[in-house]
């Protein structure tokens, strides 16, 4: 599965983010991946903060959308293009003031052209999740006839 490509090297994880201009602009960081799941971090920065001092809910939505995409990628057997069809984010609270946000998202199932994701956002640490302050669920749509954004075919069966 494709997650092994990301799991095998920090450079691959960085490169995945760099290829997505907005994710690179926000400074997203792919912390960890596994089969059909991932952890992404959005470092705190004042220009993305809301009036309460934490990261803006819009920035959290962008992180969760991106993490959903990585989770789908991590459940694919071969590089396939896909895009978000629907995304729902629920905020339990706002993210803590001045803190990085972690998105921990998994792809529950990939069936036909649909991939369904679930996950949470928290202000914990790299490997110690904090209490979730937001939840996400979404559907991604696979587009087998268009060229994938992350084209790994040259790498063969990773």
């Amino acid at each position, binding site marked *: 599965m494709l997650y092994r490509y990301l799991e095998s090297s920090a450079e691959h994880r960085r490169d995945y983010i760099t290829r997505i201009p907005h994710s690179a602009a926000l400074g997203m960081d792919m912390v960890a991946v596994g089969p059909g799941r991932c952890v992404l971090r959005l470092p705190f920065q004042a220009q993305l903060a809301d009036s309460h001092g934490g990261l803006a809910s*819009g920035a959290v939505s962008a992180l969760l959308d991106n993490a959903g995409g990585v989770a789908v990628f991590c459940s694919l057997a071969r590089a396939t293009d896909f895009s978000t069809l629907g995304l729902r984010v629920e905020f339990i609270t706002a993210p803590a003031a001045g803190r990085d946000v972690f998105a921990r998202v998994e792809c529950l199932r990939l069936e036909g052209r649909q991939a369904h994701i679930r996950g949470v956002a928290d202000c914990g640490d790299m490997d110690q999740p904090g209490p979730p302050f937001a939840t996400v669920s979404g559907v991604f749509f696979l587009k087998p006839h268009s060229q994938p954004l992350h084209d790994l075919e040259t790498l063969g069966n990773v």
Partner: protein
Amino acid sequence: MSEPVVAAAEVLAALPYAAYLGLEWFADDVLRLPFRGDLVGNYRIGALHGGVVAAALECAARLLLLRQGAPAATTVDFTVDYLRPALSRAVYLRATAVRIGRAVATVRVDAWQSDPARPVAAGHGNFLLTVS
């Protein structure tokens, strides 16, 4: 729906993330998100990042509430349907208040590019208005 009570320019300043995205007023009830290279998600087709679309829709909803004089609005939930890829040109957004209650407001947002009849995304969300 009641007339806006707060000036358009004033509410944009109250939402720094909207300013970061580059949202601006196009008409009294329409926002414009000018295209910028760092908002792209798929560079192959030059499409905006899905997160940018979600964030712009949510900002449009909160800006509407700010203009209606509800300064403490925080997002409880927000749902986005992606209808077409948002390509490398400006996005226009119009938010409509479904209901503004005492504690909760429900807002719907439509987004399009060249033709309002061909929306690129639709969003709806619930917002908490009470100060905790």
